[in-house]
């Protein structure tokens, strides 16, 4: 090969690489810095930062907003955690519905939309996730970041060869040191993810939270799906909620006992290390299935996939899957109703710890009107009422 031809070939390769890097770089920058507005519901009385409960995360990407909704009458305290795994968008969007709509008459509701904000700024390597998605609304639509299961390596890197959980010393896959739902209860001198868990644990202790509800979605091939995973201290409440929801709300939800030997998860560690009842909700998300077909925004929002349907026909799924799929409205509706039902049952059982919440849609409302109906237009809102995730 002549020197001239080699020079031309190397030049073309370098320029092509540079073009790819520029286009990709712009896309990465945009999704990492996409501002997601939250138009505060009239019920939000305070917006704090997570670092107010643990200064160790002040100034980090995970110093998330903590939305506090207080009733006029004293009562119990409930914490909703969204965005533990930002690749599970219905979990985050459910918290938007609460922060933009909920009004609390009694007790206190604390909502975190982006518990692991770092993980919401990166998509999974090899996963081909879209960088963002838009929820249609009457005023156009609102764009949200699609995230990953693990904190962004730009914020926490490198990983160890094996992750040893604190304090159990259980060995877990190395990458789970960046998984917010494997690092509870956290530690003050740990990694960013561990510090975030520690801050959340401190919040639960300082605010004397009675119930923590951690919102998730799961692939249909995962056995823990369409269920409430409960620490033993919340098993009765979860079982009762499951029974009533399955009888009245129009969908079925099961109950799973939090395995004592499985460490780092919110449903185990929060229950073990604080006084709060710890529950975790799982909704079905075909987008996460390993056998999914084309990976795009449509799959993320509509939850329809013929490959996953085929897996279901062969008995490989733990939740039904048909041509209707699992649209995001259904998944969000399930979370809304389950949360409301848990709060109502808790309040009936513990009148002195009552939490009364209104203006939050239930399952049928979200399916009928769509999620976008419950998102507020930031262009028409008082700028003082807008916060960004």
């Amino acid at each position: 090969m002549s020197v001239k031809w080699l020079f031309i070939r190397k030049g073309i390769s370098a320029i092509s690489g540079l073009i790819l890097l520029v286009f990709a770089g712009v896309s990465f920058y945009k999704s990492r810095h996409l501002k997601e507005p939250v138009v505060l519901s009239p019920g939000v009385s305070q917006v704090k930062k997570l670092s107010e409960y643990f200064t160790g995360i002040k100034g980090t990407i995970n110093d998330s907003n903590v939305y506090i909704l207080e009733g006029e009458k004293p009562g119990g305290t409930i914490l909703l955690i969204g965005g533990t795994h930002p690749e599970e968008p219905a979990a985050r969007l459910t918290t938007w519905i609460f922060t933009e709509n909920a009004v609390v008459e009694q007790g206190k509701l604390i909502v975190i939309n982006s518990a692991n904000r770092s993980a919401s700024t990166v998509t999974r390597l090899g996963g081909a996730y879209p960088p963002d998605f838009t929820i249609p609304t009457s005023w156009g639509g609102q764009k949200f970041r699609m995230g990953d299961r693990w904190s962004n390596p730009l914020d926490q890197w490198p990983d160890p060869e094996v992750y040893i959980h604190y304090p159990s010393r259980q060995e877990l896959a190395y990458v789970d040191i960046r998984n917010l739902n494997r690092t509870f209860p956290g530690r003050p001198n740990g990694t960013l993810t561990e510090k975030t868990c520690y801050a959340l644990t401190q919040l639960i202790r300082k605010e004397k939270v009675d119930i923590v509800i951690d919102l998730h979605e799961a692939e249909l091939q995962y056995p823990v799906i369409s269920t409430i995973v409960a620490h033993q201290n919340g098993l009765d409440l979860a079982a009762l909620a499951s029974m009533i929801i399955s009888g009245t709300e129009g969908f079925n939800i099961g109950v799973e006992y939090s395995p004592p030997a499985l460490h780092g998860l919110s449903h185990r560690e929060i229950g073990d290390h604080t006084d709060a009842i710890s529950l975790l909700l799982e909704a079905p998300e075909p987008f996460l299935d390993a056998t999914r077909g084309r990976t795009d925004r449509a799959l993320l929002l509509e939850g329809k996939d013929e490959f996953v349907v085929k897996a279901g026909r062969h008995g490989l799924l733990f939740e039904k899957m048909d041509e209707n799929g699992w649209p995001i409205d259904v998944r969000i509706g399930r979370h809304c109703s389950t949360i409301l039902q848990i709060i109502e049952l808790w309040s009936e059982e513990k009148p002195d710890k009552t939490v009364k919440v209104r203006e939050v849609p239930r399952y049928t409302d979200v399916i009928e009107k769509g999620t976008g109906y419950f998102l507020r237009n930031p262009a028409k809102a008082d700028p003082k009422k807008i916060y960004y995730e």
Partner: protein
Amino acid sequence: MSIFASTQIILAVMVVTYIITKALKVSTELSMFAAAIAGALAGGAGIPARHIVEGAFTYLDIILIFITATLFMNILKESGGVAYVIRGILRKFHRNKVVLFVLITFLLLIPGALTGAGSVTVLITGSMIAVVLGYMGISKPKTAAIIFILAGLSAAAPPVSLWAMITAAGVNMPYVGFFLPLLIPCLLLSLLTIFILGWSKKPVNLKKALEELPEASPKMNWLRVFLPFLVFLLLVLAGRIWPHSFPVIGLPLMFMAAASVSLLLSPVRLNFLKISRETVHQLLPLIGTLTCVGILVQIMTLTGVRGLIAITIVTLPLIVVLLTLFLVLPVSEAVLMWGAAPVLGVPLVLLFNTIGLNPIIALAGMSVIWPLGDALPPTAIIGRLTHTAVEMREPYSRLLKYCLIPGAIIMIVGTLMVVFSKKLAFLTLL
């Protein structure tokens, strides 16, 4: 057109593009890249810059480990440390091959077992052991086969087996009960491999070996050789013993620390920049492969081709699934590397669990088979790394030829572990 048919067409376009570019004598890496671009175009995604770049970074951590570990070994080699060790081992053990083989087995198993990466075994102890085996009269292809198989088994061996850990995490199963189900087959199969491939009654010609081996500097000693390894081992152990007070520094920095100590202790003056440049040059084909595999997997996922392959395999009749594990697992490893664990491992373990098999033993059996795929194209990462580390001049296919018998035994043992997992459940001690 159904989604199955359209995805099959995309897969066909990718395969045909790969075959054509290979026929045009384009390198494997560029052929994979071309297949990825063709797949994206056929799938209507255009040229998806974000996905191409994101996919290219999938194996960045592994690439960094390769570079830093190879740099460490090259510094050790240039300082005369490798020659010193080999001369020492040959003098001490040339009369007792059994002891030597057992020692070699442990030396090859430990680095991969501690780090979960067969590449670390190849790079840390593989190249040195290769020279020792060479002077024992074992041909380079046989030596490479021994090192490749043992490196694979070391990666599957406890305490860190990434296939088992990633799959266990995917099915919500704690990574407990795996120690014996992984240790026993890995250790026995390693010993079996080295004795099958390496045993001969021919004595070691010590005089000839010592004459041919390069002389190390007179100032070289065991302390200068082992202190860098000790630094590496202490850093690994410190992370295990004090995981919550020792900072997470990662394997690449551990190897750089070991390389720095080796450089400082070298009895001869070394040109660090020259060695670094040669190291990167030596590894460039592997780095290229890993980068392009990442891109290929990302585009396969984007277009649904990855899902098509996964769903086709896991929906085969159960008997076919069991009887083809020996083929499916290595092939998935060859394409996806550790990505095979979430894509195939998770649905397979769930399937086995559903039909009443023991998921821990079944997963351990699968974990023993998976590493064999590291010798197969398109990636063949560990196989090619071994080919380079052993300085084999023979074609790569010779390495594969000698892997056939131990590979077949490993496949049979792994498959039997899956089939009889229920009866072997006592090994979990749970």
